[in-house]
């Protein structure tokens, strides 16, 4: 076993053992409270620029497989667990987590007090940090950490989004709708669910213009999740603003935040973000509570809207933060959380149906 160090920008340091790739990993350290779904988490492009610490201590138990991926490769910059299982046990398992991380060159650390780390992050907020299996000098590591950019102000979507438009290879059968998906770092499960709901999906790069999108004559536009700070993505916001009212839009996570900006609102950074699969969100219209999959560090500020037609539709029952929006007149809606799950509960899948309804209505108009 090789020694490894985790160091945060405030000097908080834990020693453990390295697994996965050798080397150094820098990123914003966040914790995720999901007890299952580490493969989906690792492959979620929204974790670009972040080192993920799992609060559940026993990770890797079921290995990795071919199906449970949210993109073509893992994106998290580093991985922190209490104990990585040496064997994996599951009929679909094809590889161990350890080998998977090594093959994908992801530096990981285990054998450290991840609860102490979580408590630190909860109290101090998300921080930059480093995992190192090479450099063991605290001073030098701290310098590297402080040299790493802070998350606020970062544009990361270009790193993770597709470079060329492509058609999502959907299931057989006739599709009722054609949808264009802005890829800011889209999770495959959104595309899978759009497909199942009856959409032919064209995935386009984050930098695609509204004109190009409308050129595809879509029934609806889907704004995906993605990493980084929404406030700096002015080019994306501009195109979304162009699309408002012209075509039904459904936004998730970063897509929701960008819609917020497009409507003239603002976003702010949460202290340590929401990352997990157990947050209760209330649909204010039905008063029903759904248990949601969450992964975001920024949040839409409802008070920032001057447009009185922007309506809060979903609220997080943990901290009362904004979880969903719609507009009284414009045909769009969006949520901060992840109705596509992967990982997480399926309670919110109905939103895909709601999107279909909206497109249907818009079509008939």
């Amino acid at each position, binding site marked *: 076993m090789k020694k490894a160090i985790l160091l945060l920008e405030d000097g908080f340091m*834990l020693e453990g053992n390295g697994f996965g790739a050798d080397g150094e990993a820098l990123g914003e350290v966040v*914790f995720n*409270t*999901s*007890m*299952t*779904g580490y*493969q*989906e988490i690792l492959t979620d492009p929204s974790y670009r620029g972040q080192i993920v610490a799992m*609060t*559940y*201590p*026993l990770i890797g*138990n*079921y290995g990795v*497989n071919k*199906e*449970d991926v949210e993109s073509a490769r893992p994106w998290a910059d580093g991985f922190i667990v*209490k*104990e990585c*299982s*040496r*064997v*994996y*046990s*599951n*009929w*679909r398992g094809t590889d161990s987590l350890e080998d998977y991380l090594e093959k994908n060159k992801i530096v990981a650390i285990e054998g*450290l*007090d*991840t*609860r*102490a780390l*979580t*408590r630190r992050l*909860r109290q101090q907020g998300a921080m930059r940090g480093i995992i190192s299996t090479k450099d063991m000098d605290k001073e030098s590591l701290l310098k590297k950490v402080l040299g790493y950019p802070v998350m606020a102000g970062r544009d990361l979507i270009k790193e993770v989004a597709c470079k060329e438009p492509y058609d999502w290879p959907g299931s057989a059968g006739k599709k009722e709708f054609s949808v264009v998906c802005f890829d800011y770092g889209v999770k495959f499960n959104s595309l899978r669910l759009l497909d199942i709901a009856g959409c032919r999906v064209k995935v386009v790069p984050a930098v695609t213009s509204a004109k190009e999108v409308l050129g595809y004559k879509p029934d609806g536009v889907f704004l995906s999740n993605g990493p980084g700070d929404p406030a700096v993505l002015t080019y994306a916001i501009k195109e979304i603003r162009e699309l408002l009212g012209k075509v039904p839009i459904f936004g998730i996570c970063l897509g929701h935040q960008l819609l917020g900006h497009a409507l003239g609102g603002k976003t702010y950074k949460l202290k340590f973000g929401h990352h*997990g*699969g*157990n*947050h*209760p969100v*209330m649909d204010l219209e039905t*008063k*029903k*509570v759904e*248990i949601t999959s969450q992964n975001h560090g920024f949040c839409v500020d409802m008070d920032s809207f001057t447009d009185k037609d922007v309506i809060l539709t979903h609220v997080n*029952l*943990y901290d009362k933060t904004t979880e969903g929006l719609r507009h009284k007149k414009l045909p769009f809606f969006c949520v901060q959380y992840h109705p596509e*799950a*992967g*990982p*997480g*509960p*399926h309670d919110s899948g109905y939103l895909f149906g709601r999107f279909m309804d909206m497109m249907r209505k818009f079509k008939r108009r």
Partner: protein
Amino acid sequence: MPKRKDIKKIMIIGSGPIIISQACEFDYSGTQACKALREEGYKVVLVNSNPATIMTDPQFADSTYIEPVTPEVVEKIIAKERPDALLPTLGGQTGLNVAIAVAKKGVLKKYGVEMIGADRRTIEKAEDRDLFKKAMQKIGLDLPCSINVRSMNEAKKAVATLGLPIVIRPSFTLGGTGGGIAFNMQEFEDLVSRGLEYSMIHEVLLEESVLGWKEFELEVMRDRRDNVVIICSIENFDPMGVHTGDSITVAPAQTLTDAEYQNMRDAAIKAIREIGVDTGGCNVQFAINPKDGRMVMIEINPRVSRSSALASKATGFPIAKIAAKLAVGYTLDEIPNDITKETPASFEPAIDYCVIKIPRFTFEKFPGADPTLGTSMKSVGEAMAIGRTFKEALQKGLRSLEIKRFGLDPIIGEIDFDTSEHLMEHLVKKLRSPNDARIFYIGDAIRLGVSLDQIHQWTSIDKWFLQNIKEIVDFEAVLKKAAAVSGGLKERLPKKLMQEAKEMGFSDKQLSIFFGASEDSICELRKAHGVETTYKLVDTCAAEFEARTPYYYSTYESEDESRPSDNKKVMILGGGPNRIGQGIEFDYCCVHASFALKELGFETIMVNCNPETVSTDYDTSDKLYFEPMTKEDVLNIIDKEKPWGVIVQLGGQTPLNLTLALKKAGVNIIGTSPESIDAAEDREKFKALLDKLKLRQPPNGTARTFEDAKSVASRIGYPVLVRPSYVLGGRAMEIVYDEDTLERFILEASRVSGEHPILIDKFLEDAIEVDVDMIADGETFVIGGILEHIEEAGIHSGDSAMVLPPYSLSEEIINKIREATAAMARELKVVGLMNVQYAVRDNKVYVLEVNPRASRTVPFVSKAIGVPLAKLAAKVMAGQKLKDLGFTKERVPEYSSVKESVFPFNRFPGVDIMLGPEMKSTGEVMGIDDDFGRAYMKSQLAAGQILPTKGNVFVSVRDKDKRSIVFIVKRLIDMGFGVIATEGTARALKKSGIGKLETVHKVYEDRPNILDFLTDGKISLIINTPSGRIPREDEIKIRSTAIMRCVPCITTISGAQASVNAIEVLLKKDLDVKPLQAYHNTK
């Protein structure tokens, strides 16, 4: 939605006595529910026959009926109380069955009572296999293929399609009673006929075998707005085929991907909606084929359960409490999470540790019982352990069991094998067929180099679990290697190695064995190395939010979250896992102590590892440490918290056994001093004390060897009572009539007794035994209660029926007992509780035993006299005086209270039900009424002994009882019973002028014999006193057949007398119900 205003009074049905598969988890749930409902301003009417429960304390309900939990009685209570609603989901299967029965009788309709939580339709949909199957198929959920049958013929047709092995499940029974797996036709026929018998509706489900599949459970909650959350997932270490109550279980599920977990979650939610559990908790069980992932639904329990109690303790989410609030109309988002205070209960707990539950078995109590585990539950208790890894939790859990193992210790070394082939044969057998020690055999198999693949093939246990066990064993080898190097302890066991060992859950005791050092020196070295125990919080949210409720477990990591205060603190040591002899009664006392000391302004700290109990509710004490009850674990907490005082006398033998170690460590043990406790246990000191007080004791002596024992026995004369010291529940206690048998028992007793000597007493045949509970503060000595045993001496006090106040003792004898008790308490300087057992013979009072601690009868006595003895005791221990507490005089109620024991014999077919000095009962019930006959009758009814009012009585008694039985038989005949007797007994009866009887053959004489009569239902009551010290095989057969056929079987003359009284009462007038509060107010 706000709470309902249209209901004001709610009835809760408790689960009755502690039996296998229904233990104190239902007291935990029921107590939470009572508290929650009263908090909301509802009036609560409670019925439960179990006096040892917290829920039946009069302050937890507005009307508390300690009455038999039967449909007839519940109907009477409903008629009297007229509740608006009935909450049927908190009293286990008993509560559910009784609720359904009263609903079916039309009682609820007649009195306008609404069933809340789950209604009749829902319960039937979940419980009736056929309806359940249809419901699940309707929503497209996969089930094992199955066929319902109502006769052997139908069964045989069904097995032809389903094939063997096949699962047999009787409909509507408790904890899978009577179910099983058949591998051949013989077994199949046996199980089907037994199952048809056991089923309340004479129906059995035959099911495709999913033996060896992975088993999972989800705890689900739903509110009236259809919000559904999963509180906890549980994965069984033992795959399908072992009852989940007997399985080692792990939370959360370990080997499911998110996709599979979510699929299971979706299925559970769909199911709970379809079944129609409107509000409350529900347990859903699944099996998964490890080869292809096919998931099938096994069953749904639309109520709180053993698993929901476990899930509550494992996550910090109080399922029963929330279920009660949902039942009266709240929605999940309206109820705050108690632990974080700021977030709502509408969420799914995230946990950041591993929880393991390990069942506790007591096969040693039932010689002849089959220790193979199957679909019928056999364990009597459980321990739960929390660790940051599976390995740590497993080792903590194993040492929590108190079975003289300190972690994953080897087991094979304890047995001698002549050849290695024999050893392997034994090992393979123990791995292949599930048994109580399988986990240890797995460790041994790995030690012997058997591959994990091979072990998996034999056990079907998931390889992830096996790998973790292997890592423990591998590390053990590392430790042993280090231990073998020459050098000092410190050099051989350096800091890093020590730290790693502790992280893997190795106990100081295990290390002391590996390193050939004392446990104390390991502990010292650990501290010298600075390897510190760290405490983490169970907080429902994996540290995402701040937790306000201090509920801790230990681990070895970098950060310690405990927050010791400067308050004056008292720590209460609980009783660990339930077992026969130490169960809910002691937990009851611990809980009371916590309540009492809080009232006095102390900070209370509870330590225990039993997830079923009220003591381990995070709400009970100011702080809860969920930890093994070992010297190491307890002292670590004491080091951290530095309590002002520690209470050891309430949790039974478990904490008491720690007394000396705690004392040595300088801990302030409050209450009766450890010296006094020792003086009462130590034979020589105790003898001196009695001599001083001029009290009589049966002739006795102590022995450490057979030779000693022989000379003691010949000096005092046979029969003698042999027993180990410092044990509870009469473990290895026997009445010995001759030298040959003496040798055998000395061997067993010395094994159990360990370093302590064996006690030998002259056995007083035919004496009346008396139990006395006393409370004292060093100045004032007050009798709590004097309980006369109904069975004669020789039957363990925990198994004996007792009555308070005594019904046959003269005032003179009672006064002698009072004086003797006070004299001993004074001499022992008792501060707190004391229990004395006496034998009365020929107008002489003999002291059998003194225990300066809480006894099993404390809750019963408290309820009988209306004084909370355990609470007062805790206050006295903390320095208060009885005078100031207002309890200075014994209270002798005018009504009669009977305590009757309940036995698990129906779980162990073929085991003799004869009672003796070794305790065998799992629980107790209480009957209260104006006179002894009625109270006794209620106690029998509550214990499930349905005394007949007509039919035939079978009588077969030993020679010595042949005179006393005459009067009993005469009375029975007068009441209209027919009498059937064996030849010898018949002859004696005829001689006494009883002509009207039938003679029947003994089992081996001829056919038809008594067994045929029993099987044909010709007998409705059996009076059969054992012929001698070793029961004859035919007697065993009669008694066990009676148990299986639910025919009451009385094995003592005094029991027969009491039963005849009760039958007489029953014939005269129907029974009446009255709440405890009314009894207490009229005293």
